[in-house]
């Protein structure tokens, strides 16, 4: 049962062929069996999940009208605040913190009776592309346990690929939903900025962060997308407009006459050969499905990475200032006679990992007087240029596409001492965040040279998220026909317990 899609599970629940308690229990069993190897979860809320499942079953038995995903389990990235459940954002500084409130996203999940299995591992405060920066140890890629599952949301993507959950929540600041999806052979969607409320999402970079759905199929992602999206008066940057009809699009998958723009700058040099092979193949399949493939250019994308590594650290240096040992979280060095300042300094030294400190210092520098214009100010201008590139390209095409990342999953430890090499992972995903538009990654097959999953990225204009689902569904269907079975069926079986 755990190998089914979420939509299929929902159908079985609706038909009375299984119960949410049974479904939830089988996922808890799976977690119990394989998570020692995968380490996707930081906290498994067995009790809470089963209680929620029992409540859904009771509602269903009472004949209540339920939402489409009612009773289906989900894994929640630990950056999302859930009342009473340990929430750490992968950091020591929040170890043991139990929030007194629910994020808006969790409110939506609960309203939709989606069962929350627990909190998934992530790079500390979502800073990273490998989940190696988690204070609680790395997550392993179910395709090859010696490799990274992507990051920052590696726990969520690994949980999906390891069949520990059929649905997951991710957050994407520079690719943290899409890159993990790409390297684990799963689907991840970063909605238009403002499409899903950020209230209760522990902020990394406020103007870039966006929560979104992670799943194993495009339709599952769409169902989850509609469950969590919508205007939230608690988030001033939330869009007050109807949610794009992504489920309808995912069910249709009709791309006839659509213009698909291949980004010239996000292909070629620096991209692994197997990544390019799978990308070309996907383009052919989309053309065969009736789409028109054209080339578009985005000359300023090459500056996106540099701008990102100024904007995100700047915002995070301010966002993370609240972790100061005064009101919650870790407190270090509170001995007789110690000052508040020295306790703050020591707590932040011990509580933050190396990458977080690196970015806080970088951001502090980029915002400091005398350097603001050269760094933060210039980065914001690059942001304008990137948005203009997108706008021009979208005059010629309906969606833009590229490989999600330049390579397949690398080995754990391989890049952890080379921040620049690590940052390059996000080269194709970052422009989307800079412009605040939508982006999706879905599996496009395995790279012939290493047999690891490759991701295909679809980018759509702001508030046109349904276009990604149209194209994603078309490609997914074509690939499924070609493969005969979902890509994940080719993943090695996990030994487990």
């Amino acid at each position, binding site marked *: 049962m755990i190998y089914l899609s979420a939509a299929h599970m929902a159908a079985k629940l609706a038909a009375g062929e299984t119960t949410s308690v049974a479904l939830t229990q089988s996922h808890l069993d799976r977690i119990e069996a394989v998570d020692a190897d995968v380490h996707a979860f930081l906290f498994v809320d067995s009790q809470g999940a089963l209680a929620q499942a029992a409540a859904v079953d009771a509602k269903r038995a009472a004949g209540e009208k339920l939402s489409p995903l009612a009773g289906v389990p989900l894994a929640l990235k630990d950056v999302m605040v859930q009342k009473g459940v340990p*929430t750490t954002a992968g950091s020591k500084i929040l170890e043991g913190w139990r929030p007194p409130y629910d994020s808006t996203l969790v409110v939506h999940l609960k309203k939709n009776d989606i069962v929350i299995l627990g909190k998934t591992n992530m790079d500390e405060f979502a800073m990273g592309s490998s989940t190696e920066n988690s204070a609680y140890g790395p997550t392993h890629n179910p395709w090859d346990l010696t490799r990274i599952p992507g990051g920052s949301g590696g726990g969520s993507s690994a949980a999906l690929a390891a069949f520990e959950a059929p649905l997951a929540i991710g957050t994407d600041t520079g690719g943290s939903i899409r890159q993990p999806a790409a390297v684990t052979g799963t689907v991840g969607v970063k909605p238009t900025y403002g499409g899903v409320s950020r209230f209760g999402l522990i902020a990394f970079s406020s103007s870039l962060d966006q929560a979104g759905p992670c799943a194993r199929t495009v339709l599952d992602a769409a169902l989850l997308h509609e469950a969590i999206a919508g205007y939230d008066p608690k988030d001033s940057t939330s869009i007050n407009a109807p949610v794009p009809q992504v489920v309808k699009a995912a069910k249709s998958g009709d791309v006839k006459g659509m213009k698909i723009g291949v980004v010239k700058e996000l292909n070629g040099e620096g991209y692994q050969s197997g990544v390019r092979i799978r990308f070309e193949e996907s383009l052919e399949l989309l053309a065969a499905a009736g789409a028109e493939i054209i080339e578009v250019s985005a000359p300023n994308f090459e500056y996106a990475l540099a701008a990102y590594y100024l904007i995100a650290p700047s915002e995070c240096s*301010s966002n993370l200032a*609240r972790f100061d040992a*005064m*009101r919650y979280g870790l407190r270090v060095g509170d001995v007789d006679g110690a000052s508040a300042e020295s306790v703050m300094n020591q707590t932040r030294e011990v509580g933050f990992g190396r990458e977080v400190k690196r970015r806080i210092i970088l951001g502090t520098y980029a915002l400091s007087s005398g350097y603001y214009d050269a760094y933060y100010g210039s980065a914001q201008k690059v942001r304008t240029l990137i948005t203009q590139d997108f706008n021009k390209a979208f005059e010629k095409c309906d969606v833009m596409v590229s490989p999600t990342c330049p390579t397949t999953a690398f080995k754990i430890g391989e890049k952890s001492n080379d921040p620049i090499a690590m940052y390059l992972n996000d080269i194709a995903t970052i422009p989307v965040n800079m412009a605040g538009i939508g982006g999706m990654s879905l599996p496009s097959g395995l790279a012939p040279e290493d047999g690891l999953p490759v991701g295909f990225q679809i980018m759509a204009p702001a508030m046109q998220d349904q276009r990604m689902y149209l194209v994603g569904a078309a490609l997914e269907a074509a690939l499924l026909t070609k493969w005969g079975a979902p890509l994940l069926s080719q993943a090695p079986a996990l030994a487990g317990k």
Partner: protein
Amino acid sequence: MALTYDDVIAKYEPVLGLEVHVELNTKSKMFCGCTTVFGGEPNTQTCPVCLALPGALPTVNEKAIESTIKIGLALNCSIAPFSRFARKNYFYPDMPKNFQISQYDEPICINGYVDVEIDTDEGPKVFRIEIERVHMEEDTGKSLHVGGATGRIHGAEYSLLDYNRAGIPLVEIVTKIVPGTGKYAPEVAKAYVAELRDILRSLGVSDVKMEQGSLRCDANVSLRLIGAETLGTRSETKNVNSLRSVERAIRGEMIRHAELLNKGERVVQETRHFQEDSGLTRSGRSKEQAEDYRYFPEPDLVPVAPDATWIESLRAGLPERPSIHRKRLQEAWAVPDKEMAAMINADVLNIVEATVNLGADPTKARSWWLGEISRIAHDKDVAITDLTITPSDVAEIVALVNTGELTDKLARQVIAGVIAGEGEPAAVIAARGIKVVNDDGALMAAIEKVCGEQPETAEKIRNGHLPAAGALIGAVMKETQGQADAARVRALLLSHLGQGE
């Protein structure tokens, strides 16, 4: 040997800069829905937003924006068509986010002015105080320092934090530098803060209670030699909490600076704290090493871009400027300058006006508030507005005196009753059984009784020695427990003793 103020102004010209922080009286906080009610139990008025819990986001209180625009308009500012919130980053335990949401290079109101009039040696003179900006920000929490000397931060062993106040909307009003006030600098500053307070009160946007901290003034002072171009080094005196203190703090700083400069020492650019008891300032944090606040646009909030329709509708609703309003009242009520000044100083102008608006005669209303009621407030050592008596109570009492149902003396008893919490005037009159005795029969009985008791005095009056009547009238009043109308008693007495008109 200490310098005198006259020595200072003979040699130096003071340059002022005033920053006034005003707590707005919105119902909820600037960026969250927590109540702003003053004096709640510690940490009962907090939420994820104002405690800066991970994940929480701010949302802007519309009323606060509206109030700020109104303030800007009342201070003759331009309202920026586009303004933005910015984060001011610095660590301090009373500030939960470790940044303050404020405004930096794009404030909502800019370039205004306030005219204040003060008495100079050459007669009344108007000084124009130019306003650089009016911007929005949020207040901090409150810390209680435990151990060490009484509540002081220095020597405290630890601190206890209450975040009820964190996030209350603040408006900061910053003047441009104010040169050219010469020896009147302290008075001009005081008059400016007073005018600002009156304007804010007339707008109804703040409680403007300096003693409760809802209006706080930071005074920047520097001196330069008379005729010099370059500005001297300034000190910033924080949180000056009364109008009188504004004047004293500036005067004190001028003398302190001059003493340093005369000795050839330099003034340190620093924050100083005003000591209410001594009238002196004490050194706080040195600002020589400028803070690096790393301002940047607040990414969790979107720009404020008020459209012209909104601004104009707010402008149309502005009340009359207090200075103009005062002039108009003075004319309408025909009050001499001195009396007007007395009302302003005693802070009773608004309540007198309210009383007059309820039908009371301006002179009577004024004399009750400024006289009897002010006296009681003074005795009780409370602000007149904190007494339970209202303009409508006073208007009612004035009316009762007019119709002869109360005498002035009885009216005082009613006022005492109202202030003692015995209810409205009617209730006090009923409960205390206060009434004017205007039954001539009862009065005649008392007169006859008194004349019988004091035959010699009565005889004097009969013989035309009218001044003696006072003693008998007093006795009659006593006999009737003060409830008689003294004029009527006099008429009846004189007529009884053959001295009628």
